[in-house]
């Protein structure tokens, strides 16, 4: 009998917990603050290199905005005078779960806007739901070219980060500018959508811009493999002059370490499209001259403007290291949102509606930590910004790494015009590209 009572109490406890949780959720909203859902990886392999720096950046920017500490034009408090409240959510767990959590953010936690998403699969799944729920959503990092071709006629969804095709078009343009005589090129990518798409964009751009260069080897190990001995051997025997890789995070660092130790990088130059996120960690493990990118004018490539100076200082003070590109991208997205919400107007201290903010965001030009961004593609929903590449330089005396030989390509030079898919634009030989 005793176990029975305990069981009954347990059952009642479970039921009470469930009801209690639902009740607390109901009154969490409408507190007059501007609630922003921040969705980024807090666990899993993408958390360390991308998710945590992004979440940290969100905290720095939100705190700074609430204190009114940022330089002009963002020296007003909060968003439209309303205090910002960030609701941070983990992006791990796959697209179905993210759709569920997105609905919870919008309908249960009543956020006014959502900023987030690193995984392209998550962005693709979230976009139609955001439109359906009329929830203002800013994708800050995911790179898939399919975002606005699969979800045509966006109203509430925006992307402040750049299309992944831009990374690879920019990478080829950098090669063409700095190493025009290269003839043997190899690649190593993670075998999933990101790696496959990157390699397609890179090789197709290469065929147009550097027709003399031949692809001598392509390796596609599975994602998060960690050990690349066999792949490095396969690359080495083909004696490439440049090794392109869209690896990111731990995989990228592991590859650079192993390739360097095995001599692949003695003769070949590595071209790492996501290399900047490990700038402070390579130390002497990456050879000088390694070409690295940051998927846009972010991180170490961010321009020397007042906003970025403030951001780098605030971030470094709080976390003891300079912001990497995912951090800058997050700050960039939140500033874009603030600019749009304030352009939408309304009384000071009020929270503008999603409709008004979306209308103001569409086609907007705003100042940011990464320079001036223009929402000039996908009918005013996709940002256009320049992309920079440079070479790695490590100073063993100071223990500091820096980037030199930076070349920046304007947005018009690397971004397909509206109405053209990146794939078609590359194959047509970049018609209408305006390069500096």
């Amino acid at each position: 009998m005793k176990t029975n009572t305990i069981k009954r109490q347990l059952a009642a406890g479970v039921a009470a917990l469930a009801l209690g949780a639902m009740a607390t959720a109901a009154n969490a909203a409408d507190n007059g603050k501007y609630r922003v859902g921040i969705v980024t990886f807090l666990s899993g392999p993408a958390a360390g290199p991308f998710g945590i720096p992004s979440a940290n950046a969100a905290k720095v920017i939100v705190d700074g905005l609430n204190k009114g500490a940022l330089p002009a034009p963002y020296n007003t408090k909060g968003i439209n005078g309303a205090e910002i409240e960030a609701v941070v959510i983990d992006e791990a767990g796959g697209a179905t779960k993210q759709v569920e959590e997105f609905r919870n953010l919008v309908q249960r936690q009543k956020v006014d806007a959502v900023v987030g998403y690193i995984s392209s699969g998550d962005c693709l799944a979230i976009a139609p739901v955001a439109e359906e729920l009329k929830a203002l959503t800013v994708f800050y990092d995911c790179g898939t070219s399919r975002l606005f071709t699969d979800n045509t006629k966006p109203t509430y969804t925006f992307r402040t980060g750049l299309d992944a095709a831009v990374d690879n078009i920019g990478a080829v343009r950098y090669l063409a500018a700095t190493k025009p005589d290269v003839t043997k090129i190899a690649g190593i990518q993670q075998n999933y959508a990101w790696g496959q798409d990157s390699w397609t964009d890179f090789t197709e751009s290469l065929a147009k811009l550097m027709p003399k260069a031949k692809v001598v080897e392509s390796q596609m190990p599975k994602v998060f493999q960690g050990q690349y001995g066999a792949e490095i051997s396969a690359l080495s025997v083909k004696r490439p002059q440049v090794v392109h890789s869209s690896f990111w995070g731990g995989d990228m660092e592991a590859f650079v370490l192993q390739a360097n130790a095995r001599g692949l990088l003695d003769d070949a130059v590595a071209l790492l499209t996501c290399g900047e996120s490990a700038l402070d960690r390579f130390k002497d493990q990456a050879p000088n001259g390694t070409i690295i990118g940051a998927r846009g004018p972010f991180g170490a490539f961010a321009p020397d403007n007042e906003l970025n100076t403030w951001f780098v200082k605030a971030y470094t003070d709080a976390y003891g290291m300079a912001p990497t590109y995912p951090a800058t991208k997050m700050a960039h997205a939140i500033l874009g949102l603030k600019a749009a919400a304030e352009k939408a107007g309304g009384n000071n201290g009020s929270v503008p509606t999603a409709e008004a903010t979306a209308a103001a965001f569409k086609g907007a030009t705003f100042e940011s930590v990464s320079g001036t961004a223009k929402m000039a593609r996908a009918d005013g929903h996709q940002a256009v910004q320049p992309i920079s590449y440079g070479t790695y330089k490590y100073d063993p005396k100071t223990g500091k790494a820096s980037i030199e030989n930076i070349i920046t390509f304007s947005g018009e030079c690397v971004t397909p015009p509206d109405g053209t898919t990146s794939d078609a634009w590359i194959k047509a030989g970049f018609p209408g590209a305006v390069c500096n």
Partner: protein
Amino acid sequence: MRLDKTELALVGLAVLLLLGGMVAPGWLIFLVTIALAKALVVQGVVMQMKAGLVSFGQGLFYCVGGYAVGMGGPFLGISAGLVLLAIGVVAAVGLAMVLGLLLTRYREIFFAMLSLAFSMILYGVLVKSQELGSTDGFNVNNWTLLGQTIAGGETATHVVFLLTVVAAAVVAFLLHRYYRSSVGMTCEAIRENEVRVEYLGLSPRWIQYANYVAAAGVSALGGGLTALAAGHVDPDMAYWTTSGEFIFIALLGGTGSVLAPFLAAIVFSLVRTYAIEFVPHAWQMILGFTLLGIVVFLPKGLWSLFTRHRPEAPVVPAAPQKTSTGGAGA
């Protein structure tokens, strides 16, 4: 047709859910929809657990069901939701009929590993299919129900909810009858002692086979409904962690009743979503402690909270037999 207590509860709960769906907020409706759809996959796991097999690859059929719904539109030009779901079930059953020939030769860890291997093969194939979006997957949209186009918005959420509740209730009803039938009982007997069942003149292997194939169909239905509700499919559906989640939910609920997986799936979703909300940096730990707590304090799952404490096996299965022979005699 006389309904027993569980069946009455099933009908009652289904009606209650449908009524609740009229007033509940959108997020809760969606959460329950996904939970019930996943619970159908868990039913497939439980069906095999009852027969002594733990499938570590039920995600295979979940994924087949989901991709059938997703691919029906762009590749076959079919937009009727019910037809898409049926295609998923048929595809999964067909696949299970082939795989079952091999898998039902194995037991215990060998079955678990082999089932996991097949789901990972599907995962690998999908990841390498760039035309299907590789790991990014693709969206499922523009489907119809009984000739009506399901436009986005709250209507779609409600329609899928209704569809899922009805499908879950019907499947649960059939499963409950199945578990009480002689074949269903034989499954439990196979788990306890396969050799004795053979001595009874039955073939454990073919019973396992039929059970495996039926479980595949049920799981595929869950996958199809998830795809319709979430509007997106990706290869993660076949990844082993997804299959692990189904086992997690099965253990959480226990095999005590056909209602247990539904309860467990809803509790799991609620615990997870609130863990994510309140402890965003350590929500997995909350889930882990929940399972740990269940294993330690309720080894027969959450369902044991709802059963009266009484002696196990000997009395329960004997009871219906006695009444039936009594009825025949009179």
